């Protein structure tokens, strides 16, 4: 039994867009039979959230990248399951 991964989605306020991204990621994970905890949050508290992988948009990417030591994945279209599958699954599968 591998450990349960913690994924974090980040937007400026951590209330709206990151929640949409979280729902899309959960859909992708479910489709691939991966069990992980996905939470959404804001930029300010992201570095202390203790996540294994962080997902965010391109305008916050460079800011986050410098602040955390875990992989940060940049997503352009938060609604696209395909984009998330393509970018996230390789990273997640390596960690499991």
């Amino acid at each position, binding site marked *: 039994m591998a450990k349960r991964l913690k994924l974090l989605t980040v937007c400026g306020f951590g209330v709206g867009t990151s929640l949409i991204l979280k729902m899309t990621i959960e859909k992708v994970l479910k489709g691939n039979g991966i069990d992980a905890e996905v*939470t959404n949050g*804001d930029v300010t508290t992201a570095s202390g959230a203790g996540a294994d992988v962080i997902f965010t948009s391109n305008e916050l990417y460079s800011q986050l990248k410098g602040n955390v030591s875990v992989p940060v994945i940049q997503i352009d*279209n938060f609604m696209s399951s395909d984009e998330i599958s393509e970018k996230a699954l390789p990273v997640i599968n390596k960690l499991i």
Partner: protein
Amino acid sequence: MSVINYVTTNIFKQPSLFLGLVAFIGLLVQRKSIGDVIKGTFKTIIGVIILFKGVNIISTAVSPLSSAFSTLYKLPEANQFNPTGWLDFLGNYGTTIGIVIVSAFAINLVVARFTPIKNIFLTGHILFWMSYICVAVGVEAGLDGTALTIFATIFLALYIIIVPALLRPFVQKVTGTDSFTIGHSASVFCLIGAGVGKLVGNKEKSTEDMNIPKSFEFFRDTTIATSLIVFAVYIVVGLVIGNASSTEIFGGALGGINTIPGMQYDLFTFSLMAGLTFGAGLTVLLTGVRLMLGEIIPAFKGISDKIIPNAIPALDIPMVFSFAPNALLIGFVVSMITSILTIVLLASTGMLAYAVIPLVVACFFDVAPGAIFANATGGRRGAIIASIVSGILIVFFVAISIPAVFNTAAGFNQLFGGNDFSIWSSLGSLIGKIF
């Protein structure tokens, strides 16, 4: 009967418990495991409790500013609303607000199922606050009980159905896809931005071809940017009202912000702590909102996906941020400057009858996205001119909305208004006068 009585008098009167119940039903509908249901329900309740605490902190951090503005502009006593009145209102009508959200969302689903308007409103925090405004407007019109719930539900349903539908073609212009529209209080400025850009701009010269220095990046962290601006506003206002007044007003409010007891008042430290206390309050508020909506919105989405497969979601405004991040920064800085100038100008001529304080949050989340739409229709010139226009208009929108919801949501509009919230406060008060 006594059970039903107990539930309606005790559970329904507690907004946190009521919203917990909504989440609980939502989780059951999604067939989640028992553990997830319990966890999600409690998370929601805790979220609402935290949200109220955050709002309290924000209130204490800015109420000295309102008092200072009242002194500065010599506002008549009758025009000064109770700065924490909007909070009490939230506490008293929290459950009505919850019922209105659920009912209006149900109407949204029905309309999307049977008419060509296919957008489903999924921006939870806007749903919550717009419901708050609709209930406030109803109360101002003298409604209560069932009549209040029905009025606020219809009013909110109109907003969440029509406004995202109006924006849809413009969102398509900005993003190049028709997979979602925007459901957010910034709509009025997105429409103004798109219109102004079309009138005065040149689409070929985009804001995104400009090089904006990396050192401005921290402005994208809204909490920090907001804290800094509140800090700066305190310093400026403190200097303007003079040492004697600031010692009296700000010094008297030392207990409200997070300072050590017995601190000697000085303007710099006070302003810094007030600004950062505002940031702390905002962080707490958003944490609460996040916990509250994390369970409810997926349930809403799950239900909508089941019933209306071809629906498109109306989403939060940052969905368009990545399409023109430069326009966003330009919009924020330009509108911040023009709105503060407008406030100072109007106030010094005595035309501002109510305390309007600089609208940091609205400039970032409402006016600045308008610049993205203006850039899409009119490039650089469109974005800058639209932000100047909107920065001036935002002050008028707030000033008009304060008397419209004077006894209920005036404080909310003063802090977070100037956008659709203010427009609907004013509209609603007009409609309320007819009834």
